[in-house]
């Protein structure tokens, strides 16, 4: 049981690493964000090589199954990433609003000067 989970997690991590490397190579995501993903995968990989650590923490935090804790962990990581993205989108929106307003005012002034 434990071995199967370890194997699944390793395969899962490898697929993710492959996918992110692909995106990075094509220049679709900046290194900054690729790094966050690599680090999260690294955490999962380390833990999957030492299932004892999983079992220890699962017991400590009251999870009935080790797999439950793994899922919880992944959801936690995703949660943080989504919030970070949320903040970024809000920042982008502020910037586009500013651009739209400034360009529109400039355009009006240009029209008026003619």
């Amino acid at each position, binding site marked *: 049981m434990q071995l199967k989970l370890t194997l699944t997690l390793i395969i899962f991590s490898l697929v993710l690493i492959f996918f992110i490397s692909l995106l990075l190579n094509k220049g679709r995501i900046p290194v900054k964000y690729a790094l966050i993903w690599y680090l999260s995968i690294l955490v999962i990989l380390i833990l999957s090589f030492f299932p004892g650590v999983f079992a220890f923490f699962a017991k400590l935090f009251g999870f009935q199954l080790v797999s439950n804790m793994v899922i919880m962990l992944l959801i936690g990581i995703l949660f943080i990433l989504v919030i970070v993205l949320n903040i970024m989108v809000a920042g982008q929106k502020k910037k586009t*609003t500013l651009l739209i*307003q400034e360009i529109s005012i400039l*355009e009006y002034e240009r029209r008026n000067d003619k």
Partner: protein
Amino acid sequence: MKSKKILIIIPAYNEEDNILNTYNGIIEFNKKNKTNYDAIVINDCSTDNTKKILEDNNIPHIDLIHNLGIGGAVQTGYKYAYKHDYDIAIQYDGDGQHDVLYVEKLIKPILDGKADMTIGSRFIDKDLDGFKSSAARRIGIKTISAFIKFASGKKIYDTTSGFRAANKNIIHDFSLSYPIEYPEPITNAEVLKKGYRVSEVPVVMKERGGGISSIRAWKNVYYMLNVCLVLISIKMRRYKKCN
């Protein structure tokens, strides 16, 4: 005394039925009363004939190159007012709800130096008739009013009124930051919390001339929840006091 530069900001989204009357109303008022109000329409990327009407009739207007929503449109007006050194900026709906007759009353407290911002209020003078909106919305406005009191310690009756006048300091503040969503109640609370003097001036509003109010499309309960949440966070936030 040098006469004050006054700008009327008219945000418009799909207001082909009303925009010409609204603008002409202001121009006629200027002629009759020898006032000198400038007016500028902010066309928020209307999809109807608003733009054509504005162009054909030579109405000064800023065309937003992309739709921003009411908050972004009004802020564009405040930015323009700040850039061109206006002393007072007035928010004025493009749908014919507001009456230019009240502009003078609205800006008087600011001209007299008694207020930094004024709000055209439907609820102050109970004797004035006119459009006071539906019962459900009045309850909503009362609730928001209570939350603004909670957030800023001061009472405002017509919290969602889009008929407001602002002096230079507030024009500057608004040009720097203005909420995209639910702008009126939020800015009212923020301005109060910064220590500015706000006064409400009784006005009469008309029912919309034509078209559909964007308010009707609001999902009211969701709107209320959002506004109250922002107001609670304004209560928690600290603001730099004005002098």
